[in-house]
């Protein structure tokens, strides 16, 4: 039997300290937490940085390092620093060393790195070892060379290799959300279907239970299934909350692809052990013929400047769409003329907040609000060009009249200067898998003895 303590869905989202204490009292065999996701967009992978504040990360990680020392079991984090690039791993490693020094802890740290060299990925592409997943974008050697970061998602095999070093703390780069939880039960030869299914149920912490923000859950794995126990006093896992969690952020509610195979929960059975704990059996693991890992990549595709102006005049609010379309057309023509640009070199978009900023042409509601926020978005090849275009747009947003012969209107800007630099714009450009002869081929492992 293996017990995995999961403090929360991600480091940086906080966890209930009392619930963590109760989790430790269950005598877990490992503490596992996810450190990231693609869910906040391509900028983190593009830049190789964390989404969460360093201070929050340090406070929460320190709590887990103290818990680890108390429990005497390994602590593992997957997808360190939101994106799991080597730079993000090094960022968390530095925080870990700082905390270890401050606490006077002597720790053995295993670092699993997932960043890929562009040239290696281009070579794999040319060798036909990279395959598209459904709705993958087109790739080319040029696009792959352009990526500021490419990571491969480690699975249970690579986490197992890290655990086998006997490390106290494992800082892993990009991994699947589930691998850090599934690895230890798999190492112990427990049921593979249960290992992966339990990992999927636990990967978001207490999101598989009531009171999801309490964070902490314990998943207990054995030879035939697993059981789920939320640790917060007022949190309950029920067959419904647990089985419904397979739906979460997963395009297929029955199947989950992982390195080396897939999980099939079509026939899984969910039984209430009591009012707050659930047991799951009959989950199936189906090994694949080839060992593949998923790739993620992001590349710089331009620079943006945004601006915000408020319409409150009744006539302008009523005619906001006409007003915005007229500005977009006139300003785009002026930019092309004055900066000698082609239409493909830049874009100017005005989104009407309060009218249809969420869905654009798909919006079916049509009531007229009393005010509208106009979000101007300028995208161009360079930062300097985006700033220039933002400045050409400004006089329109300040004074553009609905008709030529009316008195010049003026609109409300909340800021000076009105243009806000968003900096580099990144795009996700890989939804592919990479075939590997050996699971460690795309990953590296380093062991550091600290203190």
């Amino acid at each position, binding site marked *: 039997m293996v017990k995995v303590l999961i403090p929360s869905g991600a480091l940086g989202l906080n966890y209930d300290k009392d619930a963590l204490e109760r989790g430790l009292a269950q005598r877990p065999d490992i503490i596992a937490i996810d450190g990231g996701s693609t869910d906040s*967009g*391509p900028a983190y992978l593009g830049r190789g940085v964390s989404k969460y504040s360093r201070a929050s990360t340090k406070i929460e990680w320190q709590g887990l390092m103290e818990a680890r020392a108390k429990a005497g079991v390994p602590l593992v984090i997957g997808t360190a620093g939101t994106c799991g690039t080597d730079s993000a791993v090094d960022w968390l490693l530095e925080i870990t060393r700082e905390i270890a020094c401050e606490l006077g802890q002597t720790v053995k740290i295993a670092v699993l790195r997932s960043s890929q060299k562009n040239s290696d990925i281009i070579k794999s592409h040319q060798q036909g070892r990279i395959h598209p997943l459904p*709705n*993958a974008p087109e790739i080319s050697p040029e696009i792959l060379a352009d990526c500021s970061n490419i990571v491969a998602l480690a699975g249970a095999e690579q986490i197992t290799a890290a655990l086998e070093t006997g490390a106290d703390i494992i800082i892993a780069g990009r991994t699947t959300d589930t691998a850090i939880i599934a690895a230890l039960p798999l190492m112990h030869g427990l049921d593979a279907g249960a290992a992966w299914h339990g990992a999927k149920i636990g990967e978001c912490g207490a999101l598989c239970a009531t009171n999801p923000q309490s964070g902490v859950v314990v998943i207990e794995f054995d030879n035939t299934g697993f059981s789920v126990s939320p640790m917060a006093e007022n949190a309950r896992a029920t067959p419904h909350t647990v089985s419904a969690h397979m*739906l979460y952020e997963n*395009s*297929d509610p029955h199947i989950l692809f992982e390195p080396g195979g897939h999980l099939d929960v079509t026939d899984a059975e969910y039984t209430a052990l009591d009012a707050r704990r659930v047991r799951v059996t009959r989950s199936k693991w189906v090994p694949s013929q080839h060992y593949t890992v998923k790739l993620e990549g992001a590349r710089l595709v331009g620079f943006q400047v945004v601006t915000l102006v408020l319409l409150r005049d009744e006539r302008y609010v009523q005619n906001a769409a006409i007003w915005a379309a007229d500005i977009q057309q006139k300003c785009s023509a002026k930019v092309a003329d004055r900066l000698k640009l082609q239409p493909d070199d830049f874009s100017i*978009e005005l989104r009407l907040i309060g009218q249809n900023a*969420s869905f654009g042409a798909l919006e079916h509601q049509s009531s007229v609000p009393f005010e509208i926020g106009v979000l101007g978005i300028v995208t161009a090849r360079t930062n300097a060009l985006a700033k220039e275009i933002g400045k050409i747009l400004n006089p329109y947003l300040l004074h553009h009249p609905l008709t030529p012969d009316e008195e010049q209107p003026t609109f409300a800007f909340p800021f000076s200067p009105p243009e806000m630099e968003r900096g580099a714009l990144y795009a*996700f450009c890989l939804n592919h898998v990479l075939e590997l002869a050996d699971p460690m081929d795309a990953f590296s492992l380093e062991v550091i003895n600290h203190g």
Partner: protein
Amino acid sequence: MVKLGRICEKIRSKNAGPFWLTIDIFCGSEDVFARVTARLGTDDIAHLLGADPTLMKRFDIASLNVIKISLPRPEIQGSVRDRDMHGASWAALIQEFKIA
């Protein structure tokens, strides 16, 4: 005619990775599940979301009284035209859809 959001327990939408969007309609009871599965066509949802119905995956899960619909993201997450980084707003269009 009644809005789906009025009769269902919860309707949520979320990214399933940067390239897919998934929508979960929690009907809350067998009766509502039977009504919604009978009256809500996959084409209706495709039309609401401006999506290609042939690329949509639909799962009617009776054990949970849930209808799950997954589709290629209307705009890739974080691309210039994307309006919703987490894909969270799309549920609103489904909530406001009226069925008999």
